[in-house]
């Protein structure tokens, strides 16, 4: 038997299939305008990829902001609980998860069983999230995935605004005054780190620290955060799937 975890985030929808021991399939697609349709499409697509049918699936657990719009799931669980479970599945020694997604950033603390004991989440503002980086990359006319490479080694410009809207004007002014793309990119990543650090520092961060969510793909942010925290931060190519993995694990245990 299998369980499916579907994490419909604000930017990307992620799904994994779990056989009780390991992740046997994973897939990711852009969420697009309809979380319901993307979720359903992704569910069918991932089933087809390993040729299984509904009878072989004991549970489908939905998470992410789109969890409320998936009519076919057996249970919905918040991404906070799922990230805890997912991280525990990847490495049982993980005690802190820093998750920066498309519209949220979170820090989650877990016990030795992957049970969430405390968490903090940003308020309604998109400051310091993936959305912030997307908007800024767009102004710099670069791909958001290239931000890290471009910024590496550059002297960061000081970007003071945390607000996405204000930071946009600030970046435009910097561009007008002749600042380089590289140094603006470095400044933007610094500012995300600053914002994230102020959230993290309210909780007592314990080893091991795992970095998840779409923004965890940005190697420079990971490096800068680790420097500020004075702790090693680990990540994996499954980072973006952490919520979906947690959901699948919860579904299997149920």
């Amino acid at each position, binding site marked *: 038997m299998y369980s499916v975890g579907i994490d419909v985030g604000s930017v990307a929808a992620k799904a994994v299939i779990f056989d009780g021991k390991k992740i046997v399939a994973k897939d990711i697609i852009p969420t697009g305008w309809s979380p319901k349709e993307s979720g359903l499409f992704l569910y069918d697509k991932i089933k087809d990829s390993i040729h299984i049918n509904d009878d072989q699936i004991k549970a489908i657990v939905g998470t992410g902001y789109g969890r409320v719009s998936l009519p076919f799931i057996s249970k919905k669980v918040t991404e906070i*609980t799922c990230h805890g479970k997912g991280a525990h599945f990847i490495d049982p020694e993980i005690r802190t998860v820093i998750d920066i997604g498309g519209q949220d950033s979170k820090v989650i603390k877990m016990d030795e069983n992957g*049970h*969430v*004991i405390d*968490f903090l*989440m940003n*308020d*309604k503002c998109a400051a310091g999230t993936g959305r912030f980086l997307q908007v800024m990359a767009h102004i710099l006319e670069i791909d958001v995935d290239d931000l890290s490479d471009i910024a590496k080694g550059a002297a960061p410009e000081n970007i003071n605004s945390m607000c996405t809207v204000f930071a946009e004007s600030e970046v435009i002014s910097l561009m007008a005054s002749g600042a380089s793309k590289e140094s603006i990119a470095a400044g933007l990543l610094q500012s995300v780190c600053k914002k994230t650090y102020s959230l993290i520092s309210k909780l007592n961060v314990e080893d091991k620290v795992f970095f998840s969510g779409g923004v965890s793909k940005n190697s420079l942010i990971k490096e800068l955060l680790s420097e500020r925290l004075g702790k090693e931060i680990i990540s994996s190519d499954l980072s973006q799937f952490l919520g979906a993995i947690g959901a699948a694990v919860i579904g299997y245990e149920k």
Partner: protein
Amino acid sequence: MRPKIMQDVEALRGINSVKIKEAHEAGKKVVGMYCVFSPQEIALAADAITVSLCGTKQEPIEFAEKELPRNLCPLIKSSYGFAITDKCPYFYFSDVLLAETTCDGKKKMYELMAKLKPMHLMNLPQGAQGEEALAFWKNEMIRFKDFLEKQFGVEITEEKLKEAIKLMNRERSAMKRLHKLNAHKPAPLSGMDMMLAQWLKGFNVDKEAGIALVEGLITEVEEQMEKGIYAFDEKAPRILLTGCPIGSGSEKVLRILEESGASVVAFENCTGYKGLDVMVDENKEPITALAEKYLSTPCSCMTPNNGRLDLLRRLSEEYQVDGVVDLTWQACHTYNIESFTVKNYVKDTLNLPFIQIETDYSDSDEGQIRVRVEAFVETIK
């Protein structure tokens, strides 16, 4: 199953706005109030009607923001917005307003509101401890009494004050009994209904009718309990809600909590149990007894405010609470700062899960709050 009397409670919305008009037309004096520090007894002893004034809805905020800063607590903006737009019937029919120097935002807003109607401002001491604070506050009671006597041309006798104290104590003890029903596990009343019953009672023109209605509700709930009818099942996580006041229109966090499967059993806030905890001593000289009672209110505008921690401890034990939610309004400095102290106390001393939610009256952050609240409930389960 929801108690049938809740329909009568909800009908108060319509009934009270008509009754206040009738009372006004019959020549009754109306004293409008905002705060749990307001000594209703003194106004009742002047044969006036006391009503809570509107301040829990989003709609008038945009009008208030023409004169007030945007980055101000929604309760202050809503109260002022209702006042300047004349959308609150209780404000409209108030002959005088009673204001109080609780937080900075409110006292500066009151300066503007005082231009609309006769207003009496009671000065609160900064702290509640010591004889000096009590003497100061007692003098404020006398000033309010003198103001009403002059304004309404009446004499507030000791006899009248004693009567009013007895009446208000009866109202408090009825509300207290209603709250205590939810100390039972599982809770017989939803937190939403508890909030609604208390909030609507605040606009009640007829105190005796209000007490009778609450007592009727208690009787019906007790009958339901005997039949095993409860609002939540035994497994629902039991939440103590503390922090800023709430009412209909600002119940967002309470609603999301209960929609997420939690049973909000205790309200430490000033629209909940805070003002019911201590009765007025009926055997003391009335003004002293009133001063003592109201000064004992553990509000974050007082420094220090250790009484709140003590109340949180007592409520968490009595109501068998599984977690504490501190709701604070944006730009409410006193509650937002105190939240750190409350968090440490709840986590380290009470050993209970804790979450602070800072928000306003709008729906714009409902999605994010839902994630946090659901995750909080998941960690308790």
